[in-house]
């Protein structure tokens, strides 16, 4: 495989593709709404109508508007159909030949779509994730070729550094810096790990990327391997995502077959192989040191840092760990250049971020937006606001994040601004809550989560989460006093400051942020006689 071959595959594929492409979503969300039967009936309709020479039906990844699935989109006219049923699906094909389409017509110019800026999700919903040729036809693996033949590993690292890309898993550590650290480490054996253990409830961006465009992640990992000097990569995916695992396996096989993964990639001296590791349902394994333990086949207990994985990670070797979305940004940056990437976003947060917009909101689904957009724009314009109600709070960052009240909806979405209001970017879950939602209950919900997911290694997290949970229960049962409320706050800070890993450090965030913005809801639950004495929160 060389450059000419790559272009040849792309050209053959472009020629093969029919002029009218009917995209039918086959990702988890739409699948649950019976999209596979929809696709089957679309296929049958094409065969029956005799339009097979110019129309093809393609099973694609997530189009984002999951709340209104199954979705079908027709190119080149860019027609969108929502809530398609197997019964009315054939009329979409008939409409191509003068008939009338029966399914609900969607508005592809709605702010939900038009306000997006797609870098990672550029091809999702357009390419068949199960065929590498389609990915190559849209320019796939050209960035890897460019890196291998036109750039030195140092240049790749510095390009990523210049782009200002920061970790999309939540922490926001500068990616270039991480790569440079691993690249500088001595030692022959190094590893690249892709963290696909997306455990935050309410977040499904990584699942969607892996299901919709697996090759984009593989390409990013291979470029990373070249840049830091690693020849072996692991993708750790949670077992709850069987479709993502299946598509990744297929993608790896196809890439190997073409000589794009494995030994002597593109006939260069660079070798890189990728193995999949499947999680087994432990939230803490999203923490990098715990994830490494899990890949080694052990209990997912975090270990103290330093040494950071960049120095001593998998089997004691220097290891680069990045999130799925981070790796998915690599190929576009190499292709378009760091300067292009820097032009998107805010001063300290570059590029775009995918959010899973869910909860009490009219339009829910996945959106990719440039950093710096405000929460109001996302929730009110793109999301269409709360059906029959008002926004009370927006929860970002999952169990590690916080609840941002409606009064702060004008906060721009970037790493620093979200930290400032007591939440965090997190992996990208954004759950909208309306006036009916009880914030103390939300705090207890997250504490229940952390209590169940703590690995039990360090005391503050193991016992602290249990104590915080029972205090919250006591408050909700209206049995708590002012002292309990004070205890809740002190204990929250203690757990935050003394826990070993991110899980414990961030576990009290939902409590602290609800205490900060919704103190009244806590106070209303405090026993009446104790209310007479002054309460400070």
């Amino acid at each position: 495989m060389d450059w000419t071959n790559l272009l040849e595959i792309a050209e053959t594929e472009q020629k093969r593709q029919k002029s009218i492409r009917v995209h039918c979503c086959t990702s988890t969300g739409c699948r649950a709404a019976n999209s596979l039967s929809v696709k089957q009936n679309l296929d049958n309709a094409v065969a029956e109508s005799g339009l097979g020479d110019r129309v093809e039906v393609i099973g694609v990844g997530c189009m984002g508007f999951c709340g209104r699935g199954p979705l079908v989109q027709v190119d080149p006219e860019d027609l969108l159909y929502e809530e398609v049923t197997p019964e009315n699906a054939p009329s979409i094909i008939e409409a191509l030949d003068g008939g009338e389409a029966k399914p609900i017509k969607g508005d592809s110019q709605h702010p939900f779509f038009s306000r997006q800026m797609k870098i990672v999700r550029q091809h999702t919903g357009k390419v068949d994730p199960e065929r590498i040729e389609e990915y190559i036809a849209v320019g796939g693996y050209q960035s890897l070729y460019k890196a291998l033949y036109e750039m030195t590993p140092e240049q790749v690292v510095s390009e990523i550094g210049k782009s200002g890309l920061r970790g999309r898993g939540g922490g926001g550590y500068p990616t270039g810096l991480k790569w440079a650290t691993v690249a500088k480490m001595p030692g022959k054996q190094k590893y690249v790990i892709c963290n696909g253990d997306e455990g935050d409830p309410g977040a499904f961006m990584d699942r969607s990327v892996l299901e919709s465009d697996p090759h984009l992640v593989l390409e990013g990992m291979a470029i990373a391997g070249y840049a830091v000097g690693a020849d072996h990569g692991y993708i750790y995916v949670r077992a709850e995502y069987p479709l993502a695992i299946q598509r990744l396996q297929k993608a790896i096989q196809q890439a190997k077959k073409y000589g794009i993964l494995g030994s002597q990639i593109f006939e260069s001296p660079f070798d890189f192989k990728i193995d999949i590791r499947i999680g087994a349902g432990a939230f803490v394994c999203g923490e990098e040191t715990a994830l490494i333990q899990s890949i080694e086949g052990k209990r997912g207990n975090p270990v103290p840092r330093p040494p950071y994985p960049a120095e001593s990670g998998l089997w004691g070797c220097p290891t680069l760990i990045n999130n799925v979305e981070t790796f998915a940004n690599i190929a576009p940056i190499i292709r378009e250049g760091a300067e292009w990437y820097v032009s998107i976003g805010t001063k300290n947060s570059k590029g775009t971020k995918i959010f899973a917009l869910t909860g009490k909101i009219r339009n829910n689904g996945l959106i990719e937006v440039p950093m710096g957009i405000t929460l109001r724009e996302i929730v009110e314009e793109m999301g269409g606001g709360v059906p029959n109600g008002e926004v009370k709070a927006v929860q970002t960052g999952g169990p590690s994040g916080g609840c941002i009240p409606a009064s702060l909806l004008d906060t721009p979405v970037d790493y620093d601004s979200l930290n400032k209001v007591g939440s965090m970017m997190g992996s990208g879950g954004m759950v909208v809550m309306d006036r009916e939602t009880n914030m103390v209950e939300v705090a207890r919900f997250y504490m229940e989560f952390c209590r169940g997911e703590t690995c039990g290694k360090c005391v503050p997290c193991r016992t602290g989460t249990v104590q915080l949970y029972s205090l919250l229960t006591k408050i909700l049962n209206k049995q708590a006093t002012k002292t309990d409320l004070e205890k809740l706050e002190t204990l929250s800070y203690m757990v935050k400051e003394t826990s070993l890993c991110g899980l414990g450090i961030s576990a009290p965030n939902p409590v602290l942020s609800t205490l900060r913005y919704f103190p009244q809801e806590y106070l209303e639950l405090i026993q009446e006689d104790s209310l007479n004495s002054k309460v400070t929160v």
Partner: protein
Amino acid sequence: MQSLTAEATKTQKSQSTPKKTSETDKRFKTLDITIKRNHYRQDALIEILHKAQESFGYLEPEVLEYVARQLKLPLSRVYGVATFYHLFSLKPSGAHSCVVCLGTACYVKGSGKIMAALEEELGIKAGETTPDDKISLMAARCLGACGIAPAIVFDGTVAGKQEPEMVLERIKAWQSKT
């Protein structure tokens, strides 16, 4: 711990129970293939336990001992891993499974109420199986199907936008089947 394993095996042999042993049970063969495919590597423990659970339905003590022996790992280590991860079950599950997603998006949209209705109907708590071994009720942290919240998995198939009544209907259909 290794000696414990050995003892346990000995006792079993002395009792000479005709039930599943590694020689007679086909499922051990499938497990063996997975172990070989992973070159007896100890770091493949989680992969192997996944496979074991798939073919045996749950991780019975005998299987854990077998895996420990094959990978030359202390039983404590295998047991430790099997009990650490939520997806491994050391108890047999019912004929049907119903998994309720309790992730934030589903929770905000009322999956807690669905769970409560199910617990009342079945008379069991999440994580338990009905006494007649028919239905196992489980809770998931997040299925990543938040766009169609609340989501429930019936026997491995995800269903979205569920209401308590719809779910109870499905469950009753399972119960009425003999």
